[in-house]
Structure formats: C-alpha cells, structure tokens
C-alpha cells in the first residue's frame, strides 16, 4: 500500500512531467496519459482500501527535505483522496480529445504536464501529515491552476482575472499558514499528530483565533460569500476539464482543510462557531444559486452553482458544530456525514456538468445558452449524461445530490430536540432556507438542460452540432453512472462515512436514520421504474405533427423562451439580491417620444465589490503609496535602512536576554 501510494506520487509528480518535457512524440504523450489514468486508478484502489478497511498509509520524505515532510492516509484523507482520484480518471480520459482539439502540438505537452502536477498538488494537500507538506501542496495547487488558466490564452482581461485569483488565494493561504503557526508554541512541531495532542493545552483565545483564521483561509478557497468573487471569474475561463477539476475537486480540498482543522485538531470551535458557519453557509447557498440562475454563460452559471453547493456543505458543517457545542455528538456526526457526502456528490456531478459544457463547446464552439438548443437530438449520449447531472444537482431523489441534502435535512430537524432555545428555533427554520435553495437549484437546472438541450436550435452552430467522440462519451457516462449508483444505493457509501465520522467526532454512532434512506430509496426507485415502464408499454399510435403556430407559417426558434426570459420572474422577485444597474439610452436625447434608437444595458456589479473590496483595495494602494516614499532610489538611504535594521535587531537581542 505504502509502495503503491509512493509510486503514484512519483509517477504523477516526476515521471509524467519529465517524459513530456523530454520528447514531443505522439507516442510519449500517449504513454504519459496512460500513466496519469493508470496511477489515478491505483490511487482509487489505495483510497478505497483505506476508506472501507481503515488501513493507514504513511510515507515519510523527511530525510530528503530540510523540514519534516510526511504524507499519510487516514480515513479522512482516504475519503478525499478517493474523491480526487475518482474524478481525475474520467476527466483525464475526457481531456484526451479535448486537448487535442483545442491546443496546438507544442502546447499539448505542457498542458498535460501541468495537469499531472495539478493532480499531485491536490493529492499532497489531502494526504499531508505535516504542516509544511500541506502548505507546499496548497501553494502549488494555486499556482498550477493559475498556470492552467493562462494556458488557454493571455488576454488582458484573463490576466486581470488570474491576478485577482492569485491575490485572493494568497490572502487565504496567509490565513491558513497563520492558523498553523498559532499551534507552534504549544505543539513545537507542525506534525499533525502533535498538533492534535497539543490542542488540549491551547488557551481559549488562541483557539478562537485559530478557528477564525481557518474559517477565513479555507472559506476563501471554498468560495464562501463574500470571499467568492474570484471563483466565477477564474473557473469559467479555464479549459473545461480543468474547470471540472477546479470546481469539482479543488474546492473540496478547502472543505478537507476546514474539517481537518476544526473537527480533527480543535474538536469544535467556540460556542458561536456553528452559528457563524451556518449563517455564512446559508447566505452563500441562497445568493450563489440566485446569481447562478441569472447567468446565460453556461460555465459562469456552473461556477456560481459551485458557490451554492459549497454553501450547502458549510451549512452542514455549521449544523454539526452547533450539535458539538451542545454535546450532541450523535447528531453532530449525522450532519458531518451529510456535509462530506454532499462534497463527494458535488465533485461527481459538477465535474460531469463542466465536462458536458466542454462537450457542448467542442460541438458548437460556444457555451452561451442563448445560442444553444435542440442538442438532445444531435448529441443523445451527452444529453443523457447531462440530464443525470442536472437531476443530481437539483437534488431529485434517485440521484446522488438528494442523499447528502436529505442527511443534512434530517440533522437540522433533530435540532428541535436540543436543550437550547436558540438551536431549537434556528435549526428547524434553516430547513426552509435549504428547501428554498433546493427549489431554486431545480429551477436553475431546468433552465440549463431545457434551454441547451431541448426545443429548437437557436443558432447555426447548434443546428450543426454533432455527437462528441467515444472517449468523451465514455467519460461522461461513467460519471453519470456513478451519480445514479450513489443515488439509488446510498447505503454503500453511508456506512463507511459513518465510521469515518466516528473517528472525527467521538461519540457519534450509527443512527437508524442514516440507514432508513438507504432502504427506502431502492423501493421507491423500483416503483417508479416499474410504473413508468408499464405506462410506456401501453398501446398507442404516434404521429409526428407540426405544432399549430396560431396561423403563422410555422414556429421558429425565435418564438421559444430564451434563457434570459426563463429566469426573468425569479430575477424580478429577487431583484433586491441582484441590484442591477440599468441604463437606457434614447437617441437623439432631445426627442424622448420619437427616439430613433434605444439602447438598453443591464450591468450587475455585486455590492461586495462596491462595499468591501473597492475600499479595501484603495486602502492598500494608499498605504503602498505612503511606503513608496521610502523607495527614494538613493543608495545612501538604503544603506541607512540596513544600518538601522541592524541596530534594531541588536537591541532586540540585548533585551531578550
């Protein structure tokens, strides 16, 4: 096992990039891709063994590195490693023809090398068992994903977005590093094991600080509102398979980090921690899906929907923390199971959706919903897989998205049994918020599938779309099958998750509630299937007939509802959440009643940018401007600085002794 894991790391991290750098022959690239897929399959097996059978893997590289650098797989790591490798295999297979189609000969090798290294960096993050290993992985993950985004092109706008992404990520990384270093005075090393044991002696104030920094740092990476502004800019502009990895997998490393810190190290935060996380999660979920539904660019919409799903995951984590604070470990465990399961499910269906967006862009060269339509007839396999993904993300029963949400619902409901009035009122009411998020998500993905795949094609490109190559179809279908598998037989996954949670939350037990859904869902699925098939077998005559067009010669695609107008009622009702800036220009201005042309623009600047980010950026700039006075360019002044620093340090040393 240790061996297999080591080989996996070395293959992905060293061998694949090296052979891609050495040779540009087609055969070497094929070998490299085979190695990537193969090592991820191995990774799946290693992770599955550790997850289901609780074996522990430890690989220590400390003898090669100046600081202690060890990797280990416990159950939590195994769960997230399983997530990464399960998604990576179909994404890699999908990428073969995607990259061939989109990139020239010389860029292809580079992007595959980055792809492989990006996977390694994520694996590093979730398997690190020392702080340094974690931070190295964390930083590499950011830089490599930024590199992959820039691989697609380097226009000014793209660079601007990547810059914002890097700034936000580094602010987050600073918070994460800070929460590591706060442990240092008590644990003396950044070994995870010693941090865990030291957390008992950390004073309450520092614990609160660690919690806050971890929440801030991992929240930035996860895209919690209002720290999300980078996400809808960085995710859509990456190549589709990379977007799939970023949205599906990379966001989950933040969830991993948060769970590792707050549950594993700290064993829960201050009493208000749960409420804070719950509130932020609920707001993120609700606003995320409202922003998603207003988008017409498919990849942008999916990015916002990732924000929503991260909100649901943190809502579950917050619920779990509330139960922990009220000494109800059984229910805390259940909520944590829900959050983790939703993280896994989201990885599956979101990567499927992004890959589907990639397939659409390959077939039609656009992901603008207003230019799509009628793709189901032209791309039946892609369409079927996307339908499964849309049903999953909308949280419909028989699909995997429902299971995680159901577990969170049940744990919220249990809040009424707590002995605190606050929790008794708040937790059951959050059911309403989660229900609303679910309802809006369903509306959003009816729009996605209905507008992109059904009806009449809205452009020439959509009219002429053809089904994608077999490898892409295989990748899409395998993810769709996984979504359905977990959706109909959730027990397979719920039971090991419960034992994982028992490690993190001492006292959590197997509840009959967790298993009841696993029993009822297959029954419901059987009833639905049997009745539907029986109804479909009824004898009937079918005739294709043109729809009556109210006397016009025929229906055209311009008579269909568009993506914009589909979401209009929801945008209208929730207009206070959007605050659009509308501008109507009538020309000429002196004749308002007989205009020759009317131009209408609606721009959405989120008010976080106005209220939080812009003042903050201006503050930083003004401080920088002040600091610039120190930079005179005069060498004597710099010598003076060096001398003053020396004097300062010497006095500091003197007084310390």
């Amino acid at each position: 096992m240790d061996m297999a894991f080591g080989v996996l790391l070395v293959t992905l991290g060293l061998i694949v990039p090296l052979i891609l750098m050495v040779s540009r022959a087609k055969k070497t690239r094929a070998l490299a891709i085979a190695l990537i897929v193969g090592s991820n399959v191995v990774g799946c097996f290693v992770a599955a063994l550790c997850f289901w059978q609780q074996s522990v893997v430890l690989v220590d590289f400390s003898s090669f590195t100046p600081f202690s650098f060890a990797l280990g797989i416990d159950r939590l790591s195994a769960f997230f490693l399983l997530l990464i490798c399960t998604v990576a295999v179909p994404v890699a297979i999908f990428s073969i023809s995607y990259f061939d189609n989109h990139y020239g000969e010389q860029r292809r090798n580079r992007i595959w090398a980055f792809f492989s290294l990006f996977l390694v960096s994520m694996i590093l993050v979730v398997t690190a068992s020392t702080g340094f290993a974690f931070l190295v992985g964390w930083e590499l993950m950011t830089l490599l994903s930024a590199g992959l985004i820039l691989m697609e092109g380097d226009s000014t706008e793209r660079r601007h977005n990547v810059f914002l992404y890097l700034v936000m990520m580094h602010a987050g990384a600073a918070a994460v590093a800070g929460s590591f270093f706060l442990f240092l005075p008590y644990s003396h090393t950044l070994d995870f094991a010693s941090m865990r044991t030291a957390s008992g002696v950390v004073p309450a104030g520092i614990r609160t600080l660690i919690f806050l920094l971890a929440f801030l740092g991992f929240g930035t990476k996860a895209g919690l509102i209002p720290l999300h502004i980078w996400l809808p800019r960085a995710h859509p502009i990456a190549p589709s398979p990379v977007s799939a990895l970023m949205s599906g997998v990379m966001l989950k490393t933040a969830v991993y980090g948060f769970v590792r810190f707050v549950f594993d190290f700290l064993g829960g935060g201050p009493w208000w921690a749960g409420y804070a996380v719950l509130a932020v999660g609920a707001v993120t979920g609700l606003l995320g899906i409202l922003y998603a539904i207003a988008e017409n660019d498919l990849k942008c919409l999916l990015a916002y929907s990732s924000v929503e799903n991260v909100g649901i995951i943190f809502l579950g984590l917050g619920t779990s923390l509330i139960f922990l604070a009220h000494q109800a470990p059984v229910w805390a465990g259940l909520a944590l199971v829900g959050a983790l399961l939703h993280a896994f499910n989201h990885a599956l269906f979101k990567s499927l959706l992004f890959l589907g967006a990639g397939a659409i862009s390959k077939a039609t060269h656009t992901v603008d919903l207003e230019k799509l339509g009628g793709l189901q007839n032209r791309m039946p396999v892609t369409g079927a897989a996307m339908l499964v993904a849309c049903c999953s993300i909308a949280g419909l029963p028989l699909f995997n998205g429902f299971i995680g949400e159901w577990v969170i619902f049940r744990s919220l409901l249990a809040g009424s049994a707590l002995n605190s009035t606050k929790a008794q009122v708040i937790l059951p009411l959050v059911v309403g918020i989660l229900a609303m998020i679910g309802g809006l998500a369903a509306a959003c993905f009816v729009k996605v599938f209905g507008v992109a795949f059904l009806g009449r094609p809205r452009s020439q490109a959509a009219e002429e779309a053809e089904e994608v190559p077999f490898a892409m179809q295989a990748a899409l279908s395998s993810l769709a099958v996984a979504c359905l598998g977990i959706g109909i037989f959730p027990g397979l996954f719920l039971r090991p998750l419960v034992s994982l949670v028992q490690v993190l939350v001492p006292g959590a037990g197997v509840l009959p509630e967790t298993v009841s859904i696993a029993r009822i869902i297959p029954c419901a699925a059987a009833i639905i299937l049997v009745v539907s098939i029986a109804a479909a077998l009824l004898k009937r005559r079918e005739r294709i007939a043109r729809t009556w067009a109210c006397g016009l010669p025929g229906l055209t695609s311009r008579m269909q509802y568009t993506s914009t107008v589909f979401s209009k009622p929801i945008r209208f009702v929730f207009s206070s959440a959007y605050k659009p800036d509308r501008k109507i220009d009538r020309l000429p201005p002196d004749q308002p009643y007989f205009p020759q042309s009317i131009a209408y623009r609606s721009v959405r600047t989120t008010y976080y940018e106005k209220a939080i980010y812009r003042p903050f950026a201006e503050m930083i700039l003004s401080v920088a401007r002040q600091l610039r006075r120190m930079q005179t360019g005069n060498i004597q002044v710099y010598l003076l600085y060096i001398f003053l620093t020396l004097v300062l340090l010497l006095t500091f040393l003197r007084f310390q002794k």
Partner: protein
Amino acid sequence: MRIALNILQALILILGAPLVRGIIARCKAFLQRRQGASIWRPYSDLAKLFHKEDLVPPTASSVFRLVPFGLFGTTICVAAFVPLVQPSALLASRGDFILFVYLLAMGRFFLSLGALDGGSAFGGMGASREALISSLAEAPFLLSFVAVAILASHADFAGMVAWTLQQNIFNVSAVHMLAFTSLAMVVIAETGRMPVDNPTTHLELTMIHEGMVLEYSGPRLALIEWSSAVKLHAMLALLVALFFPWGMVSNVSAGAVILALLLYCAKVVLLIVLLAVIESGMAKLRMYLVPDFLGVASAVSALAVIFTMLDKR
C-alpha cells in the same frame, strides 16, 4: 391484512383521483348556478384521450416522449406515501416527508423539461412561471411538515399520523392551525388551483400548468392529467391524514375499515367544497402577487415551527 389495506389505500388514491376533480367541477358549477357535467366526466375524458393518437412535434426529442411516463411513475410513488384509513401506507413507515416533497419536485422537474422540449412559446412560459412558484413554495411546504414532525417527533407520515390520532380532538394546538393554513396554501399553489393558477383557462396570459402541457395529446396527455389529479387527491388526503385523522382504524376489521373509508370520503368532500368555494369566490392573482401569497404561507409555516417550542407534550 395491513399490507392488503395499504395496497387498497394506494388504489383508492390513484383510481379515485379523477372523481375528486369531477366533484370539484360539479361543486363549482353549483356555486356558479350552472348545470355542470357529471362527476364521472373526468373518467370518460381520460378514456377518450387514451384512445386518441399521440401527436409529437417534429423537433421534440426523446425527453418529450419519456416525460409523461416518468411523471406518472413518480406520482404513483408519491401516492404510496399517504395514509387514508389506517395510520400507515406502503412507503409511509420508512419514507419521510422530505422524500415525499422531493418526489413531487421530481415530477415537476420532468414536466417542465417536457414543456421546454415542445419548442413552442407557451411551454417555456409555463415552465418559467412554474419554476418561480415551485421554488417559492418549497420552503413553506417543508416547514409545515417540520412543525408537525417536531410535535410528533417522527419524520415519517405513519408516525406523525399515529401521534395525532392519540391526541384529544379538542386539544388542537396553534401549531396545527398554523401548519394547516400554510400547507393548505401550498396545496393550492402546488396543484395549480385558484387564486394561483386557473385550471380551466387556455389563455396564454394566465396559464401555468396548462401552458406546460399544451403540446401533449392522446395517451401522453391522459397520463399527465391523471398524474395531476392523483397529486391533487394525494395532497388533500394528506391534509386530512395529518390534521384530521380521527376515525382511522388502528385494529383492522371489516366494519371499522368501511366506517373509516366513509369518514375519509366525507372529510375529503368537505375539503373539496371548501376548495370550490375558494375557487369560485376569488379572482386569480396577478403573477407577481403570487410571491406575496407564498410569502404569507412561508411566514405562517415559520411561525408554526417557532411555536413548537411552546408546545412540548
């Protein structure tokens, strides 16, 4: 015996559904001083549709063709959740209200997709409006169940109904009244009745549900119409079972079952009369007033949940 009774319950729900529609139409006709059609009319309508041929638009895909079957399947599954004459049903002991609500949402999801696949203007119009209403109705729908579930400390319908049965009929709490009010409002919105949607209209400015099914015909339309009838019947039966279960049998015997059945019919007919009075007495709300209607339902259901704190028995 119990299982046989459970199957009987599901059959009553499914086969009796068109009758419920017929009685509503008859009541409305009576209130509007019209002659009205026979209460058995919906059955002959369905039979007629089943014998007609199925017309499919040329641009429609397999989704358009499969949606009615999926919708029918999920609706039948929903019907297996509702207790009628005894505090249990085929799926009621393990399946909870969350699954119930989401199965209904699943049917709606499929129907909206079918509407969009028709490729005409009206399908999209209906689907878009339905998306707004259903996303706003979801919260009060779940919250009113949550209130009852907290009191009964059971999340499955069997447990909830059994708990209510044990309570004194005169000991009705504020929670029940609030939850009933909001659930009744949700039922009106979910099943497309006045004042949210007009089930008898075919005018594009007002239609929601009718807009979605406009391109369907023949047996497929029959399945959709039957499904929405079953949905309406299941919702009414659920209102009865959760808030007025008294009269249900706990020990199965032939006489008790017949008595319970008669009582059930009487209760549902009462609800139907109430619905007909509401429908005849109110004008349809403007589209953008529907969120206010559902907002009131949400507030009432949230109050119901808050009041459970004061009502621990």
